[in-house]
């Protein structure tokens, strides 16, 4: 019997799980993917918004500003790559002046610190590559960029180290109310694709199921919600283009719609996106010709001379858009002990720390869970060689020569870092899981050189047969058999 089951190992579910792990009680995160951070949390703008965008008084506004403020300490304690690069919402000459002033006013109401309008030489000095038609911008110094993989994985690892259980590649098939709580029926798919089912019993359920959150709410509650998968496509550019802009450049919504953002990422790439298109398929993460064509055109509204030859990959993610246009949070009125963290679209990543705090407190109060003695509030990520001096590296290599063996040439990731990713809590078992923890395969060759080597390492270290080493979940194997034997 669990005290609480969290459905969904995205950033929201993992943030909640970490906060829950501060309390006594038995908890579990159920994640359909082969790894945490394998849905919406892995494919978004990687922005910690300042918080001026959401309607004053909304969940989004409150939790975004609070989440943003929590990030410095969290990044420090949990070893998350995070940087306050500041954001600019730019207005072009043909757009009305009021737009930016309204945004400024909204930001002030939301309690966003330090925002102001910048123009002229100051603006050009901040960002020389803004489009010539840009006349002024709303500057938010607390706007920040983060690695969403590290953030989600850090929450998960820290929760795990504090006693939270994680069940990966496990899909919730049914939830039923029962005496004293809920029965959650799950299906576990093994690497060889065999399926086993199990019934889990829990006092409370937290619904952080992303685009599927409406399904589970509607199963137990008459207060129906409706979530639309809103596709966002992105272009990622090589690090040589990373300094094209320093801040996160948003557009003031205009005739062409909301427009796409252009931002540096925390690892020094340049990111352009997202598009916004509502789709029926809750797993429709394919990029489209229309999307890939639209992105450069839209980005050109705010930023000039984008070096598009430096695109190294494109991808799409889905935002969980709820009809009410706000996060749906807290205990369902007619389903006691069933807590929603639903409709978590932008600024969901920014709000996740605050959502975690709020939901966990609510659950703990209801179940009467006590604060845990000896909660460990820090976590160290994979030791990245690039962050070390030559002496430190050499000490590390003396202790473990695998740190001297570079596997990913583009990002200069060593075998030691990959072994760390595999052998740490909730260790990586697939190439994508290795990639999200180490960046191996995330560079300009997009894993062309390192993928055969990482496959070998997973085979050797985890005893996964070559034919079963996978890109991520399901039947995503790389190799179909031996030569002449297929």
């Amino acid at each position, binding site marked *: 019997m669990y005290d609480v089951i969290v459905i969904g190992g995205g950033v929201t579910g993992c943030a909640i799980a970490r906060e829950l792990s501060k309390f006594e009680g038995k908890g579990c995160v159920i994640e359909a993917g082969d790894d945490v951070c394998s849905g919406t949390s892995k494919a978004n703008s990687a922005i910690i918004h300042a918080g001026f965008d959401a309607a004053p008084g909304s969940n989004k506004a409150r939790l975004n500003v609070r989440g943003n403020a929590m990030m410095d300490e969290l990044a420090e304690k949990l070893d998350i790559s995070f940087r306050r690069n500041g954001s600019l919402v730019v207005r072009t000459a043909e757009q009305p002046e009021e737009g930016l002033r309204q945004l400024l006013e909204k930001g002030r109401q939301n309690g966003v610190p330090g925002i102001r309008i910048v123009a002229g030489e100051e603006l050009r000095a901040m960002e020389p590559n803004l489009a010539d038609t840009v006349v002024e911008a709303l500057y938010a110094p607390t706007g920040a960029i983060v690695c969403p993989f590290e953030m989600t994985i850090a929450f998960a690892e820290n929760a795990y180290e504090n006693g939270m259980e994680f069940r990966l590649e496990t899909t919730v098939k049914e939830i039923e109310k029962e005496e004293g709580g809920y029965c959650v029926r799950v299906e576990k798919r093994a690497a060889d694709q065999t399926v086993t089912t199990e019934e889990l019993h829990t006092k409370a359920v937290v619904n952080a199921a992303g685009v599927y959150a409406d399904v589970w709410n509607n199963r137990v509650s008459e207060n129906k919600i409706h979530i639309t998968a809103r596709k966002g496509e992105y272009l*990622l550019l090589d690090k*040589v283009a990373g300094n094209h802009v320093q801040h996160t450049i948003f557009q003031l919504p205009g005739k062409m719609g909301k427009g796409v953002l252009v931002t540096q990422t925390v690892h020094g790439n340049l990111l352009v996106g997202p598009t916004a298109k509502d789709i029926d398929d809750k*797993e429709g*993460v*394919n*990029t*489209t*010709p229309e*999307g*890939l064509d639209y992105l450069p055109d839209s980005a050109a509204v705010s930023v000039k001379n984008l070096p598009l030859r430096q*695109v*190294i*990959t*494109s*991808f799409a993610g889905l935002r969980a858009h709820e009809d009410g246009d706000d996060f749906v949070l807290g205990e369902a009125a007619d389903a006691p002990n069933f807590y929603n963290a639903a409709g978590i679209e932008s600024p969901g990543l920014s709000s996740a720390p605050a959502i975690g705090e709020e939901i966990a407190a609510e659950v703990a109060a209801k179940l009467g869970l006590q604060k845990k003695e000896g909660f460990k509030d820090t976590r160290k990520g994979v030791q990245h060689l690039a962050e070390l001096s*030559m002496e430190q*590296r*050499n000490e590390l*290599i*003396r202790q473990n*020569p*695998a*740190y*001297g*063996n*570079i596997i990913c*040439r*583009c990002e*200069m990731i060593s*075998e030691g870092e990959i072994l760390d990713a595999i052998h740490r809590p909730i260790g990586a078992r697939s190439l994508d899981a290795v990639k999200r923890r180490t960046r191996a395969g995330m560079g*300009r*060759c*997009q*894993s*062309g*050189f390192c*993928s*055969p080597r990482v496959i*070998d390492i997973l085979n050797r270290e985890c005893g996964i047969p*070559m034919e079963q080493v*996978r*890109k*991520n*979940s*399901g*039947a*995503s*194997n*790389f*190799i*179909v*058999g*031996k*030569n*002449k*034997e*297929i």
Partner: protein
Amino acid sequence: MKQYDLVIIGGGPAGMAAAIAAYDEGVSDILIIERDKELGGILNQCIHNGFGLHTFKEELTGPEYAARFAQQVYERGIAFKLNTMVMDISEQKVVTAMNAHDGMFEVQAKAVVLAMGCRERSRGALNIPGYRPAGIYSAGTAQRLVNMEGFMPGKEVVILGSGDIGLIMARRMTLEGAKVKVVAELMPYSGGLKRNIVQCLNDFDIPLKLSHTVVDIEGKERVEAVTIAQVGADRKPIPGTEERYTCDTLLLSCGLLPENELSRTAGVELSPVTSGPVVNESLETSVEGIFACGNVLHVHDLVDYVSQEAAVAGRHAAEYIKADAMEKSSGKTIQIEGEGGVRYTVPGFIRPDCMDENLTVRFRVGNVYQNCSIVTYFDDREIARRKRPVMAPGEMEQIILQKKQLQNDVSRVKIVIEPNS
């Protein structure tokens, strides 16, 4: 800090040939740094035949060609470090590298030869829409899996791009039991060698669809289908021409990119056309004493040309170390310009004082040309005209410039493709 006269970055065909030539020119204090576990570079996974016709007058496989050069490296006792990654090269020619045995270390070189080779254009760089499942490989990645590890990356294959590696892999995977359904090529001509189209596609009845590209990739876990469509003159897909192929694998063979991240750290000027360093007649880059050769300089079609070019770079690096070149140069330079279809030339300029008696200028054309001539002008004076029945972007062209012709009054050399009258 340990010092070497010459440090060579990369132990593939270019690095080995450069080392051998430098040694034979009298410089023996050489270090080759190779990131893989053996010398030979990409040749080790190119197990097909067709290498060495020019160099050895016989047809070798890639590993055999590599072994012959490796043997010459061993015979000369040239030092090399394997499994070693170069992480930085400074303008002062301090090379920072790392391996599991030595850790991270620096060496000071008098001269450096860049011979890092190239990488393949990835799916992301090609902007192909669709899902991102397992089963999408660059042809070279698939080649490594099949040829060096003995594993098949798929059973039913669609190939985008008719570059040589893609063509070779079409045959290779067919022989190992896969079904290659089609090769699609964006351009109206193939980027691969004729012999590969004949022996890798025609022999196995694999269709080659020119002016086609991939417009969709299906499959959320593993590739399930790929849709290709015909493209117009603007290279954009033509609606209504889509053809869907069920398959579990998409191989990409859509061009190679010189791998010049290290050249950048050294401050070497790169050409926007080749993505390789801009070099002079000695194959020296914009940074004095740093030379470049092989696919890091510009992508070659035949390894024999890589070996020839690298020997030139190695020899000039040795001369530089012996300080000959500095003394010879009067500072005068002559630009080489490509026109009328000549996309680029290597070298890009000449210091006539430092030139060998004969200088090979290599280049590629930007389109398929039939019944044309390669015409060389010194200023506006026609110097040479060579008829070429056919030229294609997939094949490298060359001319020879003679030092004795290039006298004082010449200010620029122009190479032009002109139709035969």
